[in-house]
C-alpha cells in the first residue's frame, strides 16, 4: 500500500518536473500549446491512476 502510494507520488513529481523542464524548450508558435496539452493529459492519467486501480 505505502509502496504503491510512494510510486504514485514519485511518478506525479517526475512528470510535473519534466513538464516544467521541457516547457522551456518548446518551439514557439502553435505547436507548444499542443505539446503542453499532451503533457497535461499524461499528467492527468498519472494523477488518476490510483482511482483506476481502486475500480479494478
Amino acid at each position, binding site marked *: 500500500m*505505502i509502496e504503491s*502510494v510512494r510510486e504514485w507520488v514519485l511518478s*506525479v*513529481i517526475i512528470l510535473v518536473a519534466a513538464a516544467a*523542464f521541457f*516547457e*522551456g524548450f518548446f518551439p514557439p508558435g502553435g505547436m507548444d500549446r499542443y505539446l503542453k496539452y499532451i503533457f497535461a493529459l499524461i*499528467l492527468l492519467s498519472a*494523477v488518476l491512476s490510483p482511482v483506476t486501480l481502486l475500480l479494478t
Partner: protein
Amino acid sequence: MTDYESVFRSQLAEMNFSGMEEILKAADLPPEITQSFSVKEIILHMISGDTAVSQEKIFTIIKALFFGEMKEFASLAAELICICIIAGLLSSFTASFGSGTASGMSSMICSFTAAGICLTAFYQVYQLAVESVSLMTALMGVSLPVIFAVTAVSGGAASAAVLSSVISAAVTAFSSFVRCILMPAVFVSGIFTVADSIGRRSYIKKTAAFLRSAALFGMGGAITVFTGLSAIQGIMTKSADDLLMKTARYSIDNLIPFVGGFAADSLEMVVTCIRSIRGGIGIAGVILLILLLAGPLLKSVCVILIFRLTSLVLEPAGNGAMSDCMGDLASAACVLTALLFLSSIMFILFFACVLRFAPSL
C-alpha cells in the same frame, strides 16, 4: 510526617516510573529539563500543594528554544531569498542574454535548488511531527499500564479490565492513523506544492490543497470516533465498580467484629491515597505530553514563520510562483502542526477518560 504522607510515600516507593522518565530523555529537549524531571517528585509536589516547575524556568526555556530555532532557520530563509532573487534577475535579463533557453535553464536550476531547500525544511517538520507522535504513543504505552494497575487497586477493577484493552487499542489505532495516513498525506501535499511551483503553469496545486483538507477532515473524524468510543466504554463499567467498592466496604464494616468500622475507614483512606497518586500519575503524564509537544511545536511555528516571511519578501522580488509556493508550504506546515497539536490533545483526552472513572466509596 502525617499519616497520609507516610501512606503516599510507602505506596510511591513501590512504583516504577522509569519508563515514563526514559521517554523524556529520548525527546529533543534541553538537558536541564530532562535531567531534573521526576514523576515521583511531581506527585509529591502535587500532594503537598507546591508548584512542580517554576514559571520563570519554563519561560526561559521556551525563549531559548524559540530563538535558537529561529536563528537556525533564518540562514535557510536567507539562502532561499538569494536564490529566488538570482532566479528573478535571470528571467528579467532573458532578452539581454540573446538566447531565451540559456536563461530559462538557469532560472530552472535556481527553481530546483530553491525547491530542494524548501522540501528539506518541510521534511524536517514532517519528521519531527511523526517522531513526536511516536514518542507520545510510547509514553501512553508506558504510563497507561501503571494507571490501570492503580485503578484496579483503588476499586476500579471492571474499568481497568475493559478500559485497558479499549484505550490501548484506541491509542494504537489513532496513532497509526495519524502517522501512516494523515501526516504522509500532508507531506505529499507539500511535495506537490513545491513540484508545482517549478513550472510556469499550475498542474497539481488543487490536488495538494485537496490532500491538506482531506487530512484535516480525517483528523476531525478520528477524534470524534475515538473520544466517543473511550467515553462510552467507561460509562458502562462505572456501575460495576461502584457495586464492587460498596460491597467491599459493607463486608469489612459489618462482617469483621469490633474493628470492622475502623478497618473500613482505613480502607477508605488507603483508596483515597491511591486515587491521589493515580491523579498525580495522570498529571505527570500530561506534563510529559506537553514537554514532548513543546519542542516540535516551537520548531514548526518557526518554520511556518520563516516560510511566511520568505513568501512576503519574495513577492516584490518578482518571483510570484515561488512566493505562492512558500505561502502554500506554510499552510501545509500549519496543517502538520495542527495534526500534531490535535494528536497531543487526543492523548490528553485519553488520559482524562482513564482518570475520570473512579467508583464512589
